[in-house]
């Protein structure tokens, strides 16, 4: 049994994203509203996702624009505080992701009890925000040292807004990583949040790495979920669950429910 099925209780897990509002230190932080406003909005999103029937949730600092590859400690601390404040209402397994700091996500998880994350744990990438050198070795050591060996690292197959620095084929790049580092999963994304991934990439992943756990990571919605169902073990859903399907809006419970109804039908086929 794959770990996704163990944790989420289903073979095709739907993970709803909880996008936190800009945090202290972020350029977009609303000082007037303060951290209390961030908690209030996150709470509304958590309730909507859970009422809508998602299998899991992923907390991210989605609005910490522009993103950093070394996230500031106050950002991580605020995420920890928010998750701590919400823990009494959280009913489904959850992950946390400090975008784009793959090590900070691990530190945060040691604090919050999150059971998975997604991040850049392999490769060397040219990205919109500069060259990114992954630190897979450090990540696995950190996780071990913090006493969270069971914490799952889902590797971006190709990070968003990025390409391999040497122009190498992502499948060629992943082969030795898969053999040596044993990623807990792949996140297959489109070029940014809300953009759908190439279904063919998921299909090829499934064929090349049949035992891998595969997530469709961006742009999955009610109209296209069917084309990914066969190849994926789970999907991260953000934009499509929001009011009118707009990235900056909050979660719309009805959209979540409708989507989950469709997924349930597809799961039972």
């Amino acid at each position: 049994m794959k770990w996704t099925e163990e944790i989420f209780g289903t073979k095709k897990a739907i993970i709803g994203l909880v996008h936190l509002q800009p945090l202290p230190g972020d350029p977009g932080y609303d000082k007037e509203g303060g951290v209390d406003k961030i908690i209030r909005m996150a709470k509304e999103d958590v309730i909507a996702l859970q009422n809508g029937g998602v299998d899991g949730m992923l907390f991210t600092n989605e609005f910490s624009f522009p993103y950093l590859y070394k996230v500031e400690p106050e950002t991580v601390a605020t995420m920890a505080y928010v998750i701590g404040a919400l823990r009494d209402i959280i009913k489904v397994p959850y992950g946390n992701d400090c975008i784009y700091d793959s090590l900070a996500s691990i530190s945060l998880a040691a604090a919050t009890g999150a059971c998975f994350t997604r991040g850049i744990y392999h490769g060397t990438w040219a990205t919109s925000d500069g060259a990114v050198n992954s630190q897979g070795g450090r990540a696995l050591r950190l996780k071990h040292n913090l006493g969270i060996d069971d914490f799952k690292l889902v590797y971006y197959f190709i990070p968003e807004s990025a390409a391999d620095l040497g122009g190498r084929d992502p499948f060629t790049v992943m082969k030795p990583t898969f053999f040596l580092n044993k990623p807990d999963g792949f996140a297959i994304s489109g070029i940014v949040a809300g953009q759908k991934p190439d279904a063919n990439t998921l299909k090829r992943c499934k064929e090349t790495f049949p035992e891998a756990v595969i997530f469709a990571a961006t742009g999955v919605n009610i109209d296209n979920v069917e084309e990914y169902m066969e190849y994926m073990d789970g999907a991260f859903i953000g934009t499509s669950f929001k009011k009118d399907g707009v990235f900056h809006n909050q979660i719309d419970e009805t959209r979540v429910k409708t989507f989950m109804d469709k997924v349930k039908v597809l799961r039972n086929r």
Partner: protein
Amino acid sequence: MTWLKEKLGTEKAIIAMCHLKAMPGDPGYDKKRGMEWVLDRAKYELEGLQKGGVDAVMFSNEFSLPYLTKVRTETVASMACVIGELKRELEIPFGVNCLWDPTASLDLAVATGAVFVREIFTGAYASDFGVWDTNCGDVIRHKMAIGADDVKCLFNIVPEAAKYLADRDITSIAKTTVFNNKPDALCVSGATAGVETDSTILKQVKDAVPETVVLANTGCRINNIDKQLSIADGCVVGTTFKKDGLFDNEVDVERVKGFMDKVKTVRA
């Protein structure tokens, strides 16, 4: 009137320490019992302190031994998560302290809504863990950058287990620290947690900077609190609230009550 009255509800305020157990990444962290246990014990201690009637509480990573001057992200995150969970139970104002890192303490304060932080912001010291340097200008600029403007900064000017690197007397240190940095309070400590603050030094500091809030930072006990409070504007109290007055023990609500009863008579 000092800001203690406005922010902590009383003059001669007693700030009680809530010492968190070792957390992920700390050598003493109990991986088997995990963060649930850290939270469980913190909840217990907070309850004892609140029932005992203290005016405010300060969360510190007291058992992150040996201490760092640049605290790691997982420690700050763990403290934030614990405080997030405890917020529902918190009935009194609170502060935070990531030992020994003023920047991390401010990060934690802005994340959790803490009223104050205590740290070593100034000076240069020979300490048990090597040369200890500070950079107050950077720290306070960072404070403004993250929107922590309103967080009160308690400057500990007598760090534990350390000695000033040059031969400066405490009066001069107190005066220049206040002139240069406008701290919200100065803290005067003994040699380590639990060791009585020398009341002579405490008095020298208070006399040197009468307009600044001065706190006795260590070693306050039921049998010296009247003397310390006759000089200091308030006290930070940890060890004496614990069972048998021992640092490693947990909070004993009866000891807290007895101490606070005494404080009330002193205040009156």
